[in-house]
Structures are given as structure tokens and as C-alpha cells.
């Protein structure tokens, strides 16, 4: 794989920033400083950064309730994000949105979203704008294993398929929709296989490996840019913290958490580039 030194440094910096940002929020929430609900992205950094490494400022992303990583990877201002999470007038959304609704349309970030499965139809709309305006802009639609069961996701996959929209669907399968594993909630178990039924290329990848994400994302985004239609990527990953801060996490084992921490995406990135 051919990645410039500059791009590697950018990617590691972004992943590191996301981790630091989320760890800081974890501590601030525990200290009672943050109002409302925050859903942290720590552990999943390789997915957002591996995708956004191929995007331009004028490309679009739609995000989820766990959106801080997507924002940082897409280049939303960190201070504006933090101010927003603190509910301040200087926030990215003037304190009107909070953690679950951070957006920066000028950066192509069409919003975190408090509705599971809210994003895929919106992503199709952004893709339709690019198609009808004749630009080569691409939209990346992030959602989770929980949203992979929502009707809106299937409707979005269908629309993107029949209209050959420049949309890349990225299912971040982090193992749990709130408390529940896809082992219980996903019929057929194979999320990536579902998308093939809509006639688009679809692969499952190791979402903890930045380089695997970067490679799959590069192909999918290039394909969308060429006007060849949507692609589906199931990135298998893991969230380090609970569904939201304050979650007692009584639905998985500490051993499992330790196992995934041993596969940490930042550590693997360092090992790969310094080997």
C-alpha cells in the first residue's frame, strides 16, 4: 500500500486527537462537568479516519449519536465541538444541538444524529445533489450495527442502488447496540451480506486496522467518485466505553474489553509504520 508520510502523520494525529478528546470527555463527565448524554467513539478511531482520509472538504458525511470521531476526522473545529458539548454559545451549533447534533455544513459534516438510522436517507439526498449538479462529491454515511436493522437503512441502500448514488455506507459494527449484541438482534448475523442483496459491492473488514479501512475506503470512494455507485463496508470494531457515559456496562465481560484493548488501533498503527 502506498501512503505518503504526510498522510500517515495526518491520520495518526487525527486518531490520537479523537482518543484524547474522548478520554477528556470521559473524565469531565465523571467529574459532573458535562450536561446531558455523551456517546464516546474511543476505540473506533481507525474507521472514521480511514474513511475521511480520502475525503475533501466539499465531500459530505452523515453521522450518528456517536459522532465526535466523525467530526474530528472531517475537520470540524475542536474548540467549537467542545464548546458545543458544554452547551456554550461559542459552540459549533451555538449550544442548540449538543453532543448528539454537532454539525458543520461548511466542512461537509451534515450532523451527528440522535435517531438510529436517521442518516441513510439524508446521505442519499446529499448524493443526489452531487449527481444532479454533476460534481464528483462523495457522501460517506456512518451508522452502527443497531441501525443496520432499521428500515431507513434498507430504504437508503435501495435508493442509492437504483439511482447509482455516490454514497459509501459504513456500518460501524462495534459489537453492541446499546446493551445488545448483533448476535441477538441481526437476523442472519452477516451485516455485509445484507447490502449485497441491494446489488452493490459489500465487504466486511477489520475496523481496528487503519490500513484495512484505508484500503477498502479508497476503493469505495474512488468508485463513487467515478460515478459507479454505492459501496457498503462493514467495519468490525469495538467501543471502549459504555453506550453513553454513566452506563454501568453490565452486558459484556472485562476480559472481552481487555482483549479488544490489546488490539488497540493506535498501537497497531504505530507497530505497522515502525516495523
Amino acid at each position, binding site marked *: 500500500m502506498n501512503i505518503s508520510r504526510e498522510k500517515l502523520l495526518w491520520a495518526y494525529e487525527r486518531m490520537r486527537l479523537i482518543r484524547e478528546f474522548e478520554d477528556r470527555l470521559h473524565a469531565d463527565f465523571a467529574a459532573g462537568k458535562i450536561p446531558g448524554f455523551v456517546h464516546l467513539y474511543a476505540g473506533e478511531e481507525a474507521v472514521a479516519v480511514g474513511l475521511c482520509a480520502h475525503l475533501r472538504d466539499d465531500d459530505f458525511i452523515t453521522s450518528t449519536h456517536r459522532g465526535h470521531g466523525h467530526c474530528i476526522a472531517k475537520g470540524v473545529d475542536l474548540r467549537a465541538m467542545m464548546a458545543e458539548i458544554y452547551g456554550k454559545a461559542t459552540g459549533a451549533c451555538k449550544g442548540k444541538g449538543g453532543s448528539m447534533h454537532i454539525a458543520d455544513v461548511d466542512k461537509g459534516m451534515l*450532523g451527528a444524529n440522535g435517531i438510529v438510522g436517521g442518516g441513510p436517507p439524508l446521505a442519499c*439526498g446529499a448524493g443526489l445533489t452531487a449527481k444532479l449538479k454533476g460534481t464528483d462529491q462523495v457522501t460517506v454515511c456512518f451508522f452502527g450495527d443497531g441501525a443496520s436493522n432499521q428500515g431507513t437503512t434498507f430504504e437508503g441502500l435501495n*435508493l442509492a442502488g437504483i439511482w447509482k448514488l455516490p454514497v459509501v455506507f459504513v456500518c460501524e459494527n462495534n459489537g453492541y447496540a446499546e446493551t445488545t449484541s448483533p448476535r441477538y438482534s441481526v437476523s442472519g448475523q452477516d451485516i455485509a451480506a445484507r447490502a449485497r442483496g441491494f446489488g452493490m459491492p459489500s465487504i466486511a473488514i477489520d475496523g481496528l486496522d487503519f490500513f484495512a479501512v484505508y484500503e477498502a475506503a479508497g476503493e469505495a470512494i474512488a468508485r463513487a467518485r467515478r460515478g459507479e455507485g454505492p459501496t457498503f463496508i462493514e467495519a468490525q470494531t469495538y467501543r471502549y466505553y459504555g453506550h453513553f457515559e454513566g452506563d454501568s456496562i453490565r452486558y459484556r465481560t472485562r476480559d472481552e474489553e481487555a482483549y479488544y484493548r490489546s488490539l488497540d488501533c493506535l498501537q497497531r498503527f504505530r507497530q505497522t509504520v515502525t516495523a
Partner: protein
Amino acid sequence: MTVMVEEAVRTLSYREAINEALRLEMRRDPTVIIMGEDVTGASHSEDETHLDAWGGVLGVTKGLVHEFGRQRVRDTPITESGFVGAGVGAAATGLRPVVELMFIGFMGVCLDQIVNQAAKIRYMFGGKARIPLVIRTMIGAGFRAAAQHSDSIYSTFVHFPGLKVVAPATPADAKGLLIAAIRDDDPVIFCEHKLLYDMKGPVPEGEYVIPLGQAEVKREGGDVTIVAISRMVLHALEAAERLAQQGISAEVIDLRSLSPLDEETVLQSVRKTGRLVVVDEDNPRCSVAGDIATLAATQALEFLNAPVKLVTPPHTPVPFSPVLEDAYVPSPERIVTAARATLG
């Protein structure tokens, strides 16, 4: 001597007026597109004779595909969440989509995309996004279409800040309000009454805008104010005519825009007449009719000489049987009775 040259008054049907508004706006602005179920029809087919097979289920978008093509007059699969949401996403990124939600009852299939996405995005994003989306949808009983295709449940949308809601009663208003809705930077729910499509009326040529949020006094009077919405405006005007024959002068106000609401036009009239009847085809609970009554009670109670009368359907789904459906819809007779009751 002055020679008066009388121009022939051009009449169009409500359907034609809406079609003309769409055509003019699509010509003026290449970012205006139409999306919906069978807005042209037969998109699978290469056969020229199949082109524009429907032009909308009741033919409102007929002919537009010939001028603007299938890219801009875009048939969708029957997936309301998918294509209404795509309309929201397209609006957020630079298009001005006019999405057709065939019947207003179908809101039940896609409410999240309307009320959690379209309505809230501008606010949640601190004002940094615009959603210039129009959702055209059909309302109204009287078509023998039964409970899921006959609702007038616009009050549901009025409930949500961030949405604008319009319900024109005449062809001229339909054209001017639709042009205003398309040019507006917020999502607008544009409610077309299916029993009005064939109604004809004078419609000015060319582009014109009727601002959202302006009611119109359709008939002036001094004894009682009748506020009405959409097709009920016609029933109110008929009732006013009958009341006039009985020596009662009724003022008829067409709200036209349900959100934003032109409170001042209603209050001015109530202050003048001291009596208020509201006619609404929507379900009576938590309705626009109730909202107007609240307006009078909270801001003009001292002017009221009688309790406010609401003329609405019963709080039931729309029945299928023609006998029951005809009894369900507020009639001019019921409006006359209500108006007379306010006069004691």
C-alpha cells in the same frame, strides 16, 4: 373618451395552477427538482408511449417530465422515509426539492424524517443549515377513499416548530403560495385538497408570490367571523351567502397559511364582529380549529359576545360509506347553524 380594454380573465383549475407554479419555478431555478411516487410514472420503460404514464396519481405533475426530464422529475420507489429523507439531505446540500407525499396519512410512514430531521436541523445546527424543502401532499375527505387516504391531519405538522404549513383553497392562492413555498428556506408542508383539483378560478399569468403567513378575508361582513381552511373556505362562503339571505352579514377568513399563523387578521375580525365560528376538516382534538378558539379566548375574550363555535368532523377516522362520509364532512348547513347560534 377612455377606452377600457378588458383582458380576458384566464381561468385555470387548481391542478393546472399547481402545475404552472412547478413549471415556472423549475424554469427559473435549475436546483428545483420533483421527487415522489409516480410523479411521472413508468420509469422502468424505454417505450416513449409510456412516458408520463401518470404524471402524479391525480395528474398534478403531468407534462413536466417532457420539459425537464426524468432526472429532475424523479420517480421514487414506494419508500416514503427513503425519499422524503433524501429530499431533506438534498435540501441541506444545495437543491430545492419538491417532494410529493401522495396522501397526508402517509406521514405515518416517514414522520421521523419530517419532524426529527427536516424540522429540527436548522435549529439544532445553530442556524447554520437551511432545508428549502417542499412536501406537497393531498388532504381531504369526499373521495370515497376511506380512512388511510382521506385525512386532513395538517395540525400534526403545525405542532412542530421548524415546519411551515400551507393549505390553499383557490387556484390563484395555490400558485402563489407554492411559488413562495419553493423559494422559502425552511421546510414547507403544502396541503392540496383532492376535491379542489378540478375547481377553476382566475389565475394571474407569470410568477407571483403570496407570502406565507398571510390570511385573506375572502368576504367582508360585520355580524360574525367564519375562519376556514382549504375546501372548508368554499363551504364557509356558501354558508355566508345563505346567511346574507337571512339578513346576517358574515366575514369569511381563509387562513391559507396554518404555520406561521396570521393571528392579527383573525383578531381584527373578531374584535369587529364579536362572534367566531371556525370550520376545519381536520380531526377536532388538538386541532387548528382549537388553536384559533384559543387565540380568541386568550387575546380577544372581551370582544366576544358568544361562545366560539367549532364546526369539524366527529373525532373518528374518515368513513368509507358515501352516506357516512357525506355526513362526516362539515357542511354549509352546519356552518349556517353554528353562525346563527352565536347570534342567539
